[in-house]
C-alpha cells in the first residue's frame, strides 16, 4: 500500500492519559504508545512520524484534547 503523508499531528504527551482511543481511531495506524512514562505515570501516545492523512479521527476521539492536527499545504508523499 502506497503510504502517503498528508499531514501530521502533535500530541501533548504530558496531558495524555494513555487511553489509546486515538490509536484505535487512527485509520492508518500511525499512532502508538510511547515507551516512556509521563509524569502522570502513563505511557503517552506518540505519532510515529509519518503516514498521517490528516483525517482528524484521533483529534475527534481524544478525550483529553491532547492532539493538534495539521495538514500540509502541499501534500507530501511519504519518505
Amino acid at each position, binding site marked *: 500500500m502506497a503510504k502517503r503523508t498528508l499531514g501530521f499531528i502533535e500530541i501533548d504527551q504530558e496531558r495524555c492519559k494513555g487511553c489509546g482511543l486515538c490509536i484505535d481511531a487512527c485509520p492508518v495506524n500511525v499512532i502508538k504508545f510511547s515507551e516512556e*512514562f509521563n*509524569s502522570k505515570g502513563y505511557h503517552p501516545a506518540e505519532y510515529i512520524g509519518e503516514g498521517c492523512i490528516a483525517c482528524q479521527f484521533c483529534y475527534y476521539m481524544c478525550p483529553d484534547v491532547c492532539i493538534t492536527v495539521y495538514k500540509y499545504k502541499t501534500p507530501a508523499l511519504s519518505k
Partner: protein
Amino acid sequence: MEHRIIAAGFGGQGVMLFGQIIALAGMIEDKHVTWLPSYGPEMRGGTANCTVVVSDDPVASPVVDMPNEIAIFNIPSLLKFEPTLAEGGILVMNTSMIDREPQRKDIKVIKIAANDVAEKLGNVKAQNMVMLGAFIETTKVVSKESVFKALEKKMTGKKAAFLDLNKRAVEEGMKLAREQL
C-alpha cells in the same frame, strides 16, 4: 511506637490490599491498627492510596498528614507523597513503574523492580506482595509470620490458589530489600 504508613499507586495495582494485609498482620500481633483508603474523585484518574497506622497504643486518628513510611507504586504517587514523608522516613518504590529518582536526601529509599520480580515468579500481579515483603523487611512494622497468617485469612476460596505465589513474592521482596539495607 507508631507506624504511619501510606501506600499509593494506580487502581488495580493492589495498594489497598497491600495496606489491608499490613493492618491485619498488625491486628494478629495484637497491635492497635487502622486502615483508611482515599475515596471519592481522588480515586478517579486511576490513582488510589491508603493509610495504615500500626501502633502500641489506641490509634487517635487514622488520618496521616506526615507518614513515616511510604510504599510508592507509580510516578504521580511519588510526586505527591515523597514531599510529605517525615525526616528520616522510609520510601519503598516500584522501579518497574517509576523511571524517576526521588529528590529527598533525608530519607531512606528502597528500590524494587517489583513487576519484573513478580513476572519472574509467574504472575506480574504479585508485584504488590513483592513490595510488601520489601516494606516489612525495611520498616519492621509486622513480622513475616503475621503477614503470612493475614494472607491466609484474606486468600480464601478461589484466591487460595494464589497464596503460595504471594508468600514467595513476599519472601523475594524481603530478600531484595535486605540486600539494600
